[in-house]
């Protein structure tokens, strides 16, 4: 076994992340969303629900609810921020790393939070595609 460095390194939140946690901009329920998706499980300590309002293949509004730690709330808020106003195709190209980077990095042990909001987004977009299947053009390469 090789020395593992301080667990603290794995826990430390960036100022950016904490700021997002304290003042999330996109949290809350949405009435009449185009699509809703949920991922996670409270038994595992985190759950994430994403609401998207999509018009003309563009995400005109997005909101989320979170049961989870500070990183969960902050990554959720940042995910919404990064896709709001984008086209569905653009949103589909979002990378986990972009979410983490936009928060000034994520402690390793909290990476799963970015994964959770990312997966929820993917699920929501897939659902949207499915519901529109045939009626819209497929996403560009």
């Amino acid at each position, binding site marked *: 076994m090789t020395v593992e460095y301080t*667990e603290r390194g*794995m*826990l430390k939140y960036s100022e950016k992340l*904490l700021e997002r*946690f*304290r003042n*999330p901009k996109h*949290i*809350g329920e949405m009435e009449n969303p185009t699509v809703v998706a*949920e991922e996670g*499980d*409270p*038994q*595992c*300590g*985190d*759950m*994430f*629900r994403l609401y998207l309002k999509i018009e003309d293949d563009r995400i005109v509004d997005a909101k989320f*609810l*979170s*049961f*989870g*730690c*500070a990183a*969960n*709330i902050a990554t959720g808020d940042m995910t919404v921020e990064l896709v709001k106003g984008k086209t569905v195709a653009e949103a589909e190209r979002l990378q986990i790393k972009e979410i983490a980077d936009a928060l000034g990095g994520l402690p390793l*042990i909290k990476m*799963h939070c970015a994964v959770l909001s990312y997966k929820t987004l993917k699920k929501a977009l897939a659902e949207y595609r499915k519901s529109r299947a045939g009626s819209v053009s497929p996403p560009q390469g």
Partner: protein
Amino acid sequence: MRVYLDNGTTTPVAPEVVEAMLPYFTEKFGHPVFPYSLGQEAADAVERAQEIIARSINARPEEVVFTSGATQANDMAIRGVAYANRNRGRHLITTKVENPSVLRVCERLEKEGFRVDYLPVDAEGFVDTAELEKRLSDETILVSVANVNDEIGTIEPVEEIGEILRERQRKIYFHVNAAAGYGRVEVDVKKIGADLVSLSAHKIHGPKGVGALYVAEGTPIEPVYFGYISLFNLRPGTENIPGIVGFGRAVELMMENFERDVAHMTRLRDRLISGFEEIPHTLINGPRGKKRSPANVSCSFKGLEGESMMLHLDLNGISVATGSACSTTKLEPSHVLTAIGLKAAVAHGTIRFTLSRYNTEEEIDYTLSVVPRVVEQLRRISPVKPEQL
């Protein structure tokens, strides 16, 4: 307002303690190993601290060894006694609700070929003593149980356990981790029938980096640390003299104020509990009344997650602990909350409020005004409905 309610994790050092320590940094800075005057001064200070601590637990001064904390005391005690008694048997018994400082040592011993039983607890966290009796065997050499559970405040029946062990013909050593209980409940090694007791200074307004292990005279124990011996064979290395002096002073203050502090903390504790009970979908973990540590309130607010709650309370100036009070890097819910049967989803919403003599009624008023608001706020943004849990 700043309200510190995480005294189970660590406490502010008492001003009197800092004052007692100060001369030992710059004036009485000698090394206790040498018989010249500066050295003797340091050695005398260690002896005085041994006397104070011994008196506080009804032991003799020579039975007190200073360590760098309860973690080290637990490691020294459990491995030390296990190794020294390996020829008499390789079975240990502890509980499912011990502090990680005990559990990690037991797991280590399991890797080394010892067998360890982890006793279950009931819904309030009380160790199952009937189960203890069942598990005792001719191979059992050591039992380790904390006198107070650090997460949910359960005062464990250590005297009863001591009694059970004493009744056996075969000597079974009894270790009590009193890090969470010291200063909150009486610790009398004779009444308990403990052979080893771990203490920590920073839980009773002493400094971090110093603790003690009580080792009853005649207890077979092997050193598990090696190196330069200063005062204690079991614990090599230059002693933290100012820390030891501070520990001694902290114990003096603790003993002088014990009854008053306990009454004070009990009053504040019960006010917090009553207040939190009014918040819907909220559980109080652990027992009520006399069997609960006067300093502990553990509360599960359904439908929210503890870390967020902790950080929101921090934004409001209130420091508390969450989930497993001692470890936030593991993603599993606290092993203690699991052991008392809490669903994981509920365990994740658990906050621990722990008191000290320095908390005031005003601080409790403030806390009781903030907590319900934060709970509501977090429930509003949560996709998990408390009534579903």
